[in-house]
Each structure stands twice: as structure tokens, then as C-alpha cells.
């Protein structure tokens, strides 16, 4: 509909409480995808300091890693990547026509696993902060 009648909350995201598993999986996959592609560009930009030489590279990386914000964001990045990987595998199976009846359960499983892996890795990511 090119000029469709706007029914306010009837449409789309106003209905988020009524989304089903498959829709949430899509929303999350898209969101994490945007984050990852954004990070990819930022990542290459930061690593570009390697072209300047060892000193700049080391200073930049260590400077960033000493910031709490960066560490926290890295945990976030891990969560995003893990979800995208797990849900991505779910989608690959769906594309192969495997386990379509369990698509909601596999989404919940991806979520739970993502949470578990993220929580478990927090100590690793915050290790050595402040102390050096």
C-alpha cells in the first residue's frame, strides 16, 4: 500500500509485545548484524595504526584496553557476536529445511547460550584492568 491508512499502534513495532519467537530472532539478528558490520569498520580503522608502526599500534591498543568503557563494550560485542553466530547456525539449518518445527526452541536455546557464554566470559574480559 503506497498510501496506507496509519492505524497508529496497530502497525509494526507498536505490537512488539505480540511478536513471536521467529520475529524476535529476526529483530535480534538484524540488530546484531548492524552492530557487527559497524564494528568491522571501526576494527579495521583501529588496526590501521599498524601501518604507522609498532609504537603507535601498541600505544593505541593498550590505551583503548585500559578504559573500562572499552572493556564493557567488548563484553557487549562478544554477546552480539555469539548471538549472531548461534542464531546464524539456526538460520542455516532453517535454510537447509532442517528442524523447522523446532525453530522457536532453537531461538530460545541461542538466547540462553548467549547469556551463559557472555556471563562466563566477563572475568576474562575485565582481567588486568587498572593493574595493567
Amino acid at each position, binding site marked *: 500500500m503506497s498510501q496506507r491508512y496509519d492505524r497508529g499502534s496497530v502497525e509494526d513495532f507498536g505490537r512488539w509485545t505480540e511478536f513471536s519467537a521467529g520475529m524476535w530472532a529476526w529483530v535480534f539478528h538484524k540488530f546484531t548484524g548492524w552492530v*557487527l558490520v559497524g564494528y568491522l569498520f571501526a576494527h579495521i580503522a583501529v588496526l590501521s595504526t599498524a601501518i604507522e608502526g609498532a609504537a603507535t599500534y601498541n600505544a593505541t591498543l593498550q590505551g583503548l584496553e585500559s578504559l573500562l568503557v572499552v572493556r564493557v563494550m567488548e563484553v557487549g560485542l562478544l554477546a552480539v557476536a555469539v548471538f549472531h553466530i548461534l542464531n546464524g547456525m539456526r538460520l542455516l539449518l532453517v535454510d537447509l529445511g532442517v528442524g523447522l518445527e523446532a525453530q522457536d526452541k532453537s531461538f530460545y536455546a541461542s538466547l540462553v547460550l548467549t547469556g551463559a557464554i557472555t556471563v562466563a566470559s566477563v572475568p576474562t*574480559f575485565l582481567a588486568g584492568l587498572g593493574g595493567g
Partner: protein
Amino acid sequence: MARHYSSFDRRGWRWLLQRVTAAFLVVVLAFHFFLLHFVHHAADITFAGTRFRMSNLGYFATMWLFLVTATFHGVNGVYNALVNQGIAGTQKRVAQVVLVAAGALLVVQGTRVAVAMAGISI
């Protein structure tokens, strides 16, 4: 609108490539995260260590492929999201040009970085 579906575009190849790169990325991204956050902590990474890893041809090749596939997967994903949103006409054309340019730029810059890390002088 319904009648002018052309029979020339069979763009299944982008769909297929998105899946093929996905399968590759699942493995390599997990490896990348594991190696550079759990085996080596991100904070302890130095240029010397990076050069040591990148001097290994297999690692270098994997990382370069990682760069290329991730760029394709990401840029194509963004494009798909925009098409799903219903962009068309000039907007779509602009999106294509911008995304292809951004992707190409990323691959070129990424390759330069990789070369510098490995210490190959051109």
C-alpha cells in the same frame, strides 16, 4: 505492479553466497574471538605478537579471507535489510553504489593493514 516481473534477474547467487560466507564466518569468527580474547588477552596484544601470527602464511590467508567474507556478508546484509525495508529507484541505486564503495574501501584498507602487520614490503 504485478505484471512487470522480469525473467532475467535470477539473483539467487547473493542469497547463496550469504549462506556460504556465513558458514565460513561462524567458524572463523569464533576462532578469532577465542584466540584474541581467551588465549591471548586483548590487553596484552602487542605489535610483535601480531607480526608473529601474521607471518604464518596460513593464518595470514585465513585472516584475509575473513576480511573479505565478513565485508561481503556485512555489506550484503545491510543491502538486504534496506531492500526488505522497501527502498527502490534512485535510493536503491545510491545504496548500491555507496555500499559497494564502502566494501571495496574496507577490503583495500584491510589488506594494507594485513600487509603492514605481516611486515611484507611492497
